[in-house]
């Protein structure tokens, strides 16, 4: 079985790192790596010894399984053999007909972002590993942009108050952001609609901002449910109050398959101190801040709004390592003795397979 690994087009990461490549070889697979695939993540071609380093066209044509983090451009799909198994993050919740499109091309596809968020599947859960990096990076980015100190400083040249950091959405990314901001000495508050979030936030030593009346999310598989109008209104007011005092806001609130809720409207942004920073990790699904521009950092009335939801990309080495490990753990599930062995009884395999 030949596994092809492609170089990402606009991403510094690589789906398979050398250490994982070796382990895949041990599973009986033949690795074919696009030349330069790992270069931006710190792995040059030599690092992948044992694997075939070939050019992109060759990888595309000669692989049984094709791995990339971001889906291939549509035009390249045609060059593939029938029945090739594609593994990428297809985001079928947003790209609703991707499954159909691939099927008509005679391809099979696994979407890594569809792996269930269960305890068992956590070792394959790329959303978690990448969100964790994004949360960490979001704080570093904000700290770097903010024209002020994060920690408190009583110095001979005056006393500096600690920065106030507000985290909206305490999922994996939000929690990591809380931990990182606390480490840097900021005063951290966080908010989330899930009821379990309060305890989780407090388990990191941060304060939870409470808004009464959130809808329960039991049964939604750990994903947040959409909240009603009135609630969102009261919540916005609360956020507005906090935002006026916050130096940094990091938003991570997402609702699966929908546009991200607007938690920070322009009116709020305008009340913030100049120089303050908003990092919007939900930018790719529309953003939690009204003014967010996807993949851009803008300044609005002195407030920086970072619309980069692919922050993991900016820590390519560890991000690639973690991603590759997740992939490895998943591939172990579907490769038996060097050949594909798809058990559709298995909940994980079943959820992840979007086209077969």
């Amino acid at each position: 079985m030949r596994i092809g690994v492609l170089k990402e087009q606009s991403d510094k990461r690589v789906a398979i790192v050398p250490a994982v490549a070796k382990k895949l070889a041990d599973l009986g697979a033949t690795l074919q790596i696009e030349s330069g695939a790992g270069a931006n993540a710190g792995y040059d071609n030599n690092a992948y010894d044992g694997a075939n380093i070939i050019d992109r066209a060759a990888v595309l044509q000669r692989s049984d399984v094709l791995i990339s983090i971001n889906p291939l451009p549509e035009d390249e799909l045609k060059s593939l053999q029938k029945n090739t198994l594609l593994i990428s993050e297809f985001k079928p919740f947003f790209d609703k007909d991707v499954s159909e499109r691939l099927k008509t091309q005679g391809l099979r596809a696994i979407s890594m972002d569809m792996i269930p968020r269960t305890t068992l599947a956590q070792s394959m859960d790329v959303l978690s590993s990448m969100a964790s990096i994004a949360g960490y990076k979001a704080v570093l980015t904000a700290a770097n942009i903010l024209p002020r100190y994060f920690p408190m400083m009583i110095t001979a040249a005056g006393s500096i108050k600690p920065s106030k950091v507000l985290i909206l959405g305490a999922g994996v990314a939000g929690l990591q952001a809380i931990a990182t901001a606390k480490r840097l000495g900021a005063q951290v508050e966080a908010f989330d609609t899930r009821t379990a979030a309060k305890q989780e936030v407090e388990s990191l030593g941060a304060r939870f901002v409470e808004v009464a009346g959130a809808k329960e999310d039991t049964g939604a598989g750990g994903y947040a449910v959409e909240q009603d109008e009135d609630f969102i209104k009261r919540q916005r007011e609360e956020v507005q109050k906090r935002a006026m005092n916050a130096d940094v806001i990091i938003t991570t609130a997402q609702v699966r398959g929908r546009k991200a809720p607007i938690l920070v409207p322009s009116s709020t942004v305008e009340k913030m101190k100049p120089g303050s920073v908003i990092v919007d990790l939900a930018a790719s699904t529309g953003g939690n801040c009204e003014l967010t521009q996807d993949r851009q950092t803008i300044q609005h009335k002195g407030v920086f709004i970072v619309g980069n939801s692919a922050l993991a990309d900016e820590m390519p080495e560890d991000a690639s390592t973690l991603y590759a490990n997740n992939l490895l753990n998943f591939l172990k599930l579907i490769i038996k003795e060097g050949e594909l062995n798809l058990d559709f009884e298995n909940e994980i395999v079943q959820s992840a397979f979007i086209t077969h």
Partner: protein
Amino acid sequence: MLISLINLSYLIGAVAFVWGLRLLSSPDTARRGNILASIGMGIAILATLVAPISGGDNNYLWILIGLVVGGGIGWVAAKRIAMTAMPQMVSVFNGLGGACATVLALAELFKYYDGTMTMGLGQLGIVLFTLLIGAVSFTGSMLAFGKLDGRIKDKHVILPGHTIINIILLVVVLALAVWLMIQGSAAGTGLMVVFLVASLLYGFSFVAPIGGADMPVVISLLNSFTGLSAAAAGLIYGNQIMLVGGILVGAAGTILTVLMCDAMNRSLLNVIIGGFGSAGGGSKGESGDQVAKEATVTDASIQLFYANSVMFVPGYGLAVAQAQKALKELDDLLEGNNVDVKYAIHPVAGRMPGHMNVLLAEADVPYPKLLDLEDANAALKDTDTVVIVGANDVVNPAALDDPGSPIYGMPVLEVWNAKNIIVLKRSMSPGYAGIQNPLFFHEKNRMLFGDAKDSIQKLVQEVKNM
């Protein structure tokens, strides 16, 4: 001259008892205290053997037989018994002591009723008291032994309305005692036997309704009874060391009983009439038909203090309780006592990747002490005590051996390979995955219920005391 020597020996014996008990109450000196007390006992027995005596044939052979047989039984029993069964053993020994006092009282009464001896009213009272208390201590202790050993279940011996039965029995026994005193030597051995049987019965009935978990308290109480019976016997024989030793044990036993109740956060009365309670109010450790065994803070701290290696397994509960600094304090304390302490970090412990790392870094736990899954599983085999601090799913053996489990196939920390397991959590509720954890019912495991920070702080206190 000889008499002075004997008196001096008794005095030394008495002081040895007092000082021995004193030393026994501090861990550093406890062992010496026990030896001192036993030396005191040896001196007292020797002195008694050589003491000049008016009338009587000495009959050393009989004494020798008794000493050898009794000593042999005691020695063998004490050496053979398993570590875990020691409280039962103590209970048996205590019962025998009570029986001894009863036998002495019977011997006096036989002489009294067959007319070879006269007694004043006061003395008769003392003898009857000795008999009663000794007998209660005897049957009570034996039942306590049965319960602790698991041979006798609470339900076998608790009658409905047991408290009332106890009160009635007590009244009967006391009435018999009064009647025997009024009758004097006219009463005869028949009535004496009735009194004996009633006393024995009362001892049994007294202990019957008390829950199995409360047995240590009961044994302590019965021990102070035995002490009193020995003191009373001392009055019969006009012997100071019996009196002093008996009173000492009576007092010490009583206060110890109270302390034990305190440690359990209960009153003595509550324990004694606890028969009703013990049946209802299911313990925290129950779940379905399985029962998880609970550890006391003391048990747990001993297992930590005397371990060579300890592994902490932190989980989400550590974070919820914000117990990381307390845990580090416990760590420091143990390291200071030559215990090798490590932390086993499961990859999904907590609620975000690296959750445990964040917490433990905050508490300044050095990185080399943190073992990841693989290293931890290798190290667990040689670990004496594992302490699971608010973790659950990550130590669930069902992941390995129950194909029906939703987490079947996930690698977990194989804590059951260590010698002892202690789980700190608040209840039997499941963790994030929402599934029951068979580990809690593992024979090596003991639950220490309560908020993790609380429990750890208690452990710190206790370890400091050692």
